[in-house]
């Protein structure tokens, strides 16, 4: 019991320091104090570089998490034809069971809109992230960063967003402005009165 008491006392001290730091910060919600009644449970172990290495890239809209690498549409075309075209069509037009990846710009107000990467997706980083995590369908996670950059470039070139030789990398990919970037609104519901 005595040892546990010391543990809580130490944890309490550490937390007081954290709480004090937090108190001065702005925030739109009340940040909780750690460990229920101001105590840490002391569960879990510190994550190491080895643990992080087991996880793949989580990519954000500003390019957070993008790995080093590069690729152009010209390079991506061959990989696309081999790994993607069977389902998404040679020109990204889609098939019965799989979505179109290209085209559809200007159709969103039509009776039959065609939402694709080019006509709908607001961020180019989403394309990289999704291909890297989930494609090709039968073998997700098998592509190397350079290949993902190249396929992303090819899909964006199909949609007229980059030229065939435009090089995508950690810096240029998040800098691209997608055509439908301003096409999204926050949730207005309840919208039926």
């Amino acid at each position, binding site marked *: 019991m005595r040892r546990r008491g010391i543990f809580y006392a130490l944890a309490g001290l550490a937390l007081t320091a954290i709480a004090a*730091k937090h108190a001065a910060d702005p925030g739109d919600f009340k940040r909780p104090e750690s460990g229920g009644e101001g105590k840490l*449970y002391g569960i*879990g172990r510190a994550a190491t570089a080895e*643990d*992080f290495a087991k996880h793949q890239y989580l990519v954000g*809209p500003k390019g957070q998490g993008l790995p080093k690498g590069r690729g152009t549409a010209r390079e991506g075309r061959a990989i696309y034809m081999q790994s993607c075209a069977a389902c998404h069509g040679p020109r990204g037009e889609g098939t019965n069971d799989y979505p179109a990846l290209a085209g559809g710009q200007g159709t969103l107000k039509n009776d039959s809109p065609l939402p694709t990467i080019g006509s709908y997706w607001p961020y180019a980083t989403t394309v990289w992230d999704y291909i890297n*995590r989930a494609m090709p369908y039968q073998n997700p996670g098998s592509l190397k960063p350079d290949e993902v950059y190249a396929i992303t470039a090819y899909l964006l070139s199909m949609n007229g967003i980059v030229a065939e030789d435009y090089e995508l990398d950690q810096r240029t990919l998040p800098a691209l402005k997608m055509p439908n970037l301003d096409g999204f*609104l926050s949730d207005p519901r309840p919208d039926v009165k």
Partner: protein
Amino acid sequence: MSRSKFQPDHIDRRRFITLGAAGLGALALRPAAAREFGDPRRPYGERSPFERATRTFGTSVTPGTGSSRTPLQELYGTITPSALHFERHHSGVPKIDPNAHELLLDGLVERPLLFTMKDLRRFPSVSRIHFIECAGNSGREHEGRPGETVQRSHGLLGNSEWTGVPLKSVLEEVGIKPKARWIIAEGADASRMSRSIPLKKALDDVLVAYGQNGEALRPEQGYPLRLVVPGWEGNISIKWLGRLMVTDEPFMTREEAAIYTDLMPDGKARWFSFEMEAKSVITRPSGGQILDGRGFYEISGLGWSGRGRITRVEVSTDSGKSWADAQLDGLVLPKAATRFSLPWKWDGGEAALQSRCTDETGYVQPTREQLISVRGLHAGPDGFNHYNGIKTWFVHRDGKVSHA
């Protein structure tokens, strides 16, 4: 003290003994019929072989994707049996060894930590009943192709008792940095499904769950670990949870920046439309069932709201011309399915059965016409999401119940 003559203690004791003796005599005269000995004990139970309710799903060229639907028309009460809970997968159901499974919690935190399943079970646990509904549930109703059965029209719904750790407890353990506003959750399925969740919600009522209806999660429901994000579209309750990363902004994953969005008639789309609005449906009598002659039936169904408790369910048998208050049966819990019922005498004529629920915010379930007058009929990348209109079942003179 007046007792009814129908109460058992009114029966004359001597008469009772006489009846009993006569009964025994009759038994003795009857030839002994051989009785078949029953089945032995078994370590893990199965339902009766006479029971046939199943999840249903269409064929798919990619069997690992797609969804299966809960047979709501066959279920009682509010809890969805785990084996019948709807599924939605993007790359198949992974087989994960819980002894090898870990949850990484990193990003804008004071102490990035790794938790094993044993670690997570050491935290104080909670059990809560919540529905999980796919954003696309009833999307065909929106489109104008009403489902033939309630399984078809509303079967992407389940309601379970989930057991786990409040996400808040785990976040407190790692310590959230001041700039933190969102959490990116990632599954350990082959396609590493990922979504961004506002930190405010994460600290409110989100669970890191390992239990479902008293036992471990089913593989289809995220074994060994999943998020349960109460009241919000099912997709955000990431299954096979492997990583949570605290960030300052949403990461615009494909599911939130493209798929689970709502395209409006002006060409703009709503995004981060998380809440599943109040919705109800009659499960008995419902499409595909047949009424066995005129007379008494109990109209019964489910109501649920992502914004809190169901406070009222009304039922109409004349296509919404008149309404009667249904009874709310059993537990009425926030962000959980609630069973309602109304006694009904079928006169053998045509009837159009509808239910309409109200939740504790005062929101009333709308009609399809009300919804499409605002939201139109523009299918987004994944069809229609977040539809919660009133559903009609038509009772025909021959007792058949149908969707049209």
